[in-house]
């Protein structure tokens, strides 16, 4: 490792170029995918749709033009996005804590797993749309209800992945702990939990994506208080405000991608360090 890398400021051109190439290799495919989507978008707008029907998919530059420069549209939209981000992150945090806790309890004995796992499966298999009206009646139509929907959607991958991870330690490693007369807590914190970490991060990545969906579904149905993006989607649809509708969709997509990327990067960083790949 050169001195330049250590203080993060390259002193010659080659370091900077290498870094640029590395960044390009990471961002390149994503940019290509975005370009592909934009190309198809314009193709549909100008080639597939006749001028009378073009309002169904207004061209991208028009969507951006009428929304980005207009504070009357953008301000409420960003407020709504902030609200949705808040719901998604709170829901995710709760789902992570509950999911890991539930899995830890299940991992304590085959008996506990047999009794508790069916509830997780039931939670996963009930369509969330069948539950939402009930949640509204019980919890009201505000922030709390939105978070509950978000938690229900994001919970299962946390439970399932954590449990799988806790059970992934090899029998010989368990024998080693048994021979050393390890306590239950030592076994959990020094063997099962560390062994589960990669799976927990897989669960976290999936739960992060689902928490965005959960937050939007939640504020689509529960409209009390500050509207979230889901609420705006509904309003724009009713008013047939196509430019704003597309802008809102673009924002939610960006949010979803950002959530996924952050957790994927976190996953790589932590797991890399964990197994000693990214040694300092």
């Amino acid at each position, binding site marked *: 490792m050169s001195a330049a890398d250590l203080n993060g400021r390259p002193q010659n051109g080659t370091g900077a170029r290498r870094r640029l190439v590395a960044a390009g290799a990471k961002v390149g495919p994503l940019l290509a995918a975005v370009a592909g989507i934009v190309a198809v978008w314009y193709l549909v707008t100008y080639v597939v749709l006749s001028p009378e029907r073009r309002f169904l998919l207004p061209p991208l530059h028009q969507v951006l033009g009428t929304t980005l420069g207009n504070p009357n549209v953008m301000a409420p939209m960003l407020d709504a996005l902030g609200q949705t981000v808040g719901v998604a992150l709170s829901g995710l945090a709760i789902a992570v804590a509950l999911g890991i806790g539930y899995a830890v309890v299940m991992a304590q004995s085959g008996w506990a797993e047999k009794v508790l796992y069916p509830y997780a499966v039931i939670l996963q298999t009930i369509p969330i749309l069948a539950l939402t009206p009930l949640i509204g009646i019980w919890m009201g139509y505000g922030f709390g209800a939105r978070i509950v929907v978000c938690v229900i959607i994001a919970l299962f991958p946390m439970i399932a992945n954590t449990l799988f991870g806790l059970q992934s330690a*090899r029998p*010989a*490693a368990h*024998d*080693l*702990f*048994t*021979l*050393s*007369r*390890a306590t239950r807590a*030592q076994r959990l914190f*020094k*063997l099962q939990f*560390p*062994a589960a*970490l990669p799976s927990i991060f897989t669960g976290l990545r999936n739960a992060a994506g689902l928490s965005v969906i959960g937050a939007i579904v939640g504020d689509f149905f529960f409209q009390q208080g500050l509207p979230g993006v889901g609420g705006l989607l509904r309003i724009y649809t009713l008013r047939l405000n196509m430019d704003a509708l597309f802008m809102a969709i673009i924002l939610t997509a960006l949010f979803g991608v950002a959530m996924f990327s952050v957790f994927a990067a976190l996953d790589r960083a932590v797991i890399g360090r*964990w*197994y*000693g*790949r990214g*040694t300092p």
Partner: protein
Amino acid sequence: MTRTLVLDDVTKAFPTGTVALERVSLSVAAGEFVSVVGPSGCGKSTLLRLASGLDEVTGGGIEVNATSTSYVFQEATLLEWRSALRNVELVGELRGAPKADRRRRAQEALDLVGLSGFEKQHPRQLSGGMRMRVSIARALVAEPDLALFDEPFGALDEITRLRMQTELQSLFALKNFAGLFITHSVSEAVYLSTRVVVMSGRPGRVVADIPVPWSYPRPPELRYEPEFAALTGEVSAALGEHS
């Protein structure tokens, strides 16, 4: 000489109906290194699991006169998220030894198996032979009176395997624990041991108990001596008759 491990007429039948061991009697005294050879599936691993207390006999009895027993598994069985040093430290950590103390002992054990300088490496960054050295260091760090080995070198290439054998017998000469060593290799058994026990095919029974005369440490060239060849021939013959 105290008998560190005594198996008296031990039988092990699993609930599935498989009889793995039948009336096995065997003892290992302090300062003895006993190898067990036998056909695959004859109950060698089962024997070690019984000796270590991981599993229980269904007949006969086991006596262990050791304050500390260690176990080296067929695979290195290291915790992948821990560095070599912290893997060796694990046993002391689980027993609540003070940190400075257990770290010093772990460092000494790593030095002993020739891994000075690799303390901070994680298992994925080590070769198969080095991982097995870490595993042996972890077993020796507890200063065991009884050390059990379940085919520890089975997965290593021939060159590494020979080097590990040389190292293990010099460690034995140094530490003088009572050793019980499972292997498939007759020459490995003869080179390492004070005695070679030959088992029959399942259900495993002891069919020969052959003493090995040479003192420790043993030079690698011992393997090319005619007496060595004669002894491996004797063990192989006992194996061949009963498998």
